[in-house]
């Protein structure tokens, strides 16, 4: 059996096309990369456990998994705003797309969004302020967790002229624009098509003003799109056809790419496969800039971590640098706060951060008369590896650790029970105030937080409402320092998923780096092209 398998795998290992690139792109590929070509089609694979699952359809108001389905939603609807970046992921910023510009007024309490003129939905109807307001109101009432929680005044969404949408908030909400690309309010559906098709049909064959229109949609299985001839950007999209297919995991996707059956796979997180893909040279491997570091959440509301010494012991017993080096060959940076190098307001270190100090950890554990900890995580490859490593490290300090790998539902139950000790999770977002941001893991009001500290809540609220980026940076730096000083939760590996693409496929966010929004990056599908 083993001999047969080894023989098969041996054949596969030697299966590289001798003519294919094994590292740097060949000269013709490099020159082709600079000149986008029009036409062609690509098939993109998405993991059935996350982005490849769209069971409720693709209507922004009813797609409860919209955060995971950013790829499909972006291809169909485009978006009022997009997160763009340099090819290396630097200088990332939210830029108007179907919106033309925006203004923050009254210290961040009023936002005016001016729309581009002349955009139409793919059904030919006008993409105007009325349509946008209709969608905003509809989407804000949606059940998707990607629905933003806007502190709107009564009737706080209005129209000014025919092309400007006005949002009025009860308090300064300066981070609202940064939150657009990761929320369902960014995707504007055709009100006419919605009325004509009805909710049930619209969710399967939605109509937007994005670069592609729906040809067929088998939920959570296959979505076939074709070029939108009425797309508002001249000469775009480059591709004639774009197909998304759901596939059962990294291994199957990797093999399908090698077999030439698909052209891209978003969000690979199995590190050995990433390495194999990189060394194989047959695929383009693009690791996205990390925005959300892992954090060991400690439940400071209950024993044993209501005692600061126990939390400090965990800090001192934890050596994320060793984990990053030993398990992941320094592939991922290590953070000391809730930001990561790909996100806003990141700083490499926090003054006074408690690093690995085994003697100090042992001493604290002895003072406490021993420490028993239950550590859990929502399993994926990286999380499980890190959890096992932490158990080993903590054991050296005399901390007895039981590890548990939770399913989503049991994880939620654990958090809601309040009886959990420690959870290995990710924290933060590209903008800490947007999406599943820092407050999700640290605010008093979040059911998924182990911290109840008014001072920290106030800092988050202040940062969220502050217009000036430098001032926001200062507030978030202070919050990071505060978390470190109080030993609320040690931060660690800043993991980011990787895209695999076939040679000859190019596109922003696919083969260039754009900070991830919700796990995956927001690929700019209209600019994706394929050399022939």
């Amino acid at each position: 059996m083993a001999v047969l398998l080894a023989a098969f795998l041996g054949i596969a290992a030697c299966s590289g096309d001798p003519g294919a690139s094994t590292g740097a792109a060949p000269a013709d590929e490099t020159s082709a990369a600079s000149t986008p070509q029009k036409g062609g089609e690509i098939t993109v694979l998405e993991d059935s456990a996350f982005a490849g699952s769209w069971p409720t359809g693709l209507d922004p108001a009813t797609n409860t998994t919209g955060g995971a389905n950013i790829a499909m939603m972006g291809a169909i609807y485009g978006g009022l705003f997009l997160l763009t970046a340099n090819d290396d992921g630097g200088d990332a910023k939210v830029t108007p797309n179907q919106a033309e510009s925006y203004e923050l007024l009254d210290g961040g309490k009023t936002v005016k969004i001016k729309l581009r003129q002349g955009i139409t939905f793919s059904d030919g109807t006008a993409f105007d302020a009325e349509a946008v307001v209709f969608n905003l109101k509809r989407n804000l009432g949606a059940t998707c967790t990607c629905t933003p929680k806007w502190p709107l005044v009564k009737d706080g969404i209005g129209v000014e002229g025919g092309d400007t949408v006005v949002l009025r908030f009860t308090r300064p909400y300066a981070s609202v624009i940064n939150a657009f690309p990761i929320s369902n309010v960014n995707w504007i559906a055709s009100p006419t098509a919605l009325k004509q098709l009805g909710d049930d049909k619209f969710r399967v064959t939605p109509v937007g003003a994005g670069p592609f229109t729906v040809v067929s949609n088998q939920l959570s299985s296959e979505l076939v799109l074709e070029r939108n001839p009425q797309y508002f950007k001249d000469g775009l999209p480059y591709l004639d056809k774009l197909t998304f297919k759901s596939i059962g995991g990294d291994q199957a996707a990797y093999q399908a790419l090698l077999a030439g059956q698909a052209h891209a796979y978003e969000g690979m997180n199995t590190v050995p496969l990433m390495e194999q893909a990189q060394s194989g040279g047959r695929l383009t491997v693009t690791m996205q800039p990390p925005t959300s570091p892992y954090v060991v959440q400690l439940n400071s509301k209950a024993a044993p971590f209501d005692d600061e010494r126990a939390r400090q012991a965990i800090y001192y017993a934890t050596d994320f640098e060793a984990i990053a080096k030993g398990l992941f060959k320094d592939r991922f940076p290590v953070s000391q706060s809730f930001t990561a190098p790909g996100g806003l307001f990141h700083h490499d270190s926090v003054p006074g951060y408690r690093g690995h100090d085994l003697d100090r950890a042992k001493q604290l554990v002895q003072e406490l008369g021993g420490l028993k900890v239950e550590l859990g995580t929502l399993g994926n490859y990286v999380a499980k590896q890190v959890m096992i490593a932490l158990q080993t490290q903590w054991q050296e300090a005399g901390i007895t650790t039981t590890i548990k790998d939770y399913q989503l539902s049991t994880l939620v139950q654990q958090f809601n029970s309040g009886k959990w000790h420690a959870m290995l999770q990710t924290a933060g977002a590209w903008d800490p105030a947007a999406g599943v941001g820092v407050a999700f893991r640290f605010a008093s009001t979040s059911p998924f937080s182990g911290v109840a500290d008014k001072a920290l809540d106030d800092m988050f609220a202040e940062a969220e409402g502050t217009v000036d980026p430098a001032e926001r940076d200062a507030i978030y730096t202070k919050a990071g320092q505060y978390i470190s000083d109080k030993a609320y939760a040690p931060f660690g590996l800043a993991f980011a998923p990787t895209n695999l693409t076939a040679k000859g496929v190019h596109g922003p966010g696919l083969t260039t780096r754009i900070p991830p929004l919700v796990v995956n990056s927001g690929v700019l599908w209209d600019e994706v092209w394929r050399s022939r």
Partner: protein
Amino acid sequence: MTAVTAGRHRGVGARLFASPSVRLVGNRLLMAIPITLGVSILTFWVLNLIPGNAAQQLLGADATPEQIRAMELQLGLDKPAPLRYLDWLGGAVTGDLGRSLVSGQSVAGQLGERLAVTGELVAMAFVVSLVLAVPVALLAAYRPNRLFDRLSMFVSVTGLSVANYVLALVLVLVFAVRFAVFPAIGFVPLSESVGGNLHSLVLPSAAIGIPMFCLYTRFLRGDLVDQMQGQDYVVTAQAKGVGPWRVLLRHAFRNSSFGLITVVGLNLSTLIGATVIIEQIFALPGLGQLMLQAINTRDMAVVQACVVVFAVVAVLANLLTDLLYAVLDPRIRYGSR
């Protein structure tokens, strides 16, 4: 209608209902009702025991308790479980399998779309396994313990030791990645291209069919050797000067096929179960993929419907097995004294 004609009709009807085979079919179909009911109750009960529900699964880890409660109300999950089951059952007995809790689409429509894919996959796997197993087992049993027999034994044991998802990945590596002769993923509908359709199902059906082939080969070969070496009728036939191939094919194989049919019938549910994983790996839009997604989202209506379809198929497969016994051996007359 004359009295003579009516009498003749009554005679045909009476004979038909008196037929043991018809009674067997009728009895088995009647038995399918409590079986299906039992399976649906069990499925519903088990799914209710699993933590979380469709609302929680759909909204994810980031959802607040308020959001989950709102979604539960929207999906009707606030009703007690027995009431939800009875609602479903009431619809199902009238042919209405309801709508998916998650997508709002008709469950019957979803099943219709995907049943053909899984049906074809299972049929091809079934054909692959049997078409290969019978000749290999015959050749192995013809000269036991010789090179071919030992080779077939090695292959069978190897195939039985490999999980079908591992086999699937190896098949893709070799035949899709290395030699590029078959596609690694995807499905071409029969209506689009017959050749393309068969081509797209070769690797998935092989991944399911090869372990079955190994099982059937081992079983049939063992039974054939046993028949050839120890049975009186074989000795009698040989004494009459019947050639070894003729004895093997006409006599021993006929007897051994009963056992094979039983094993094949019993394995059909394993075959169907394998589709759940294989459809994921090959990105096939079949019933297995649908059921897995429905389990993940706790979409009770869809899971129930899939399970009922699988249960009915299993019952029908067992019925077919019993009928095949009667076809192969005229001495078997069900219900006769």
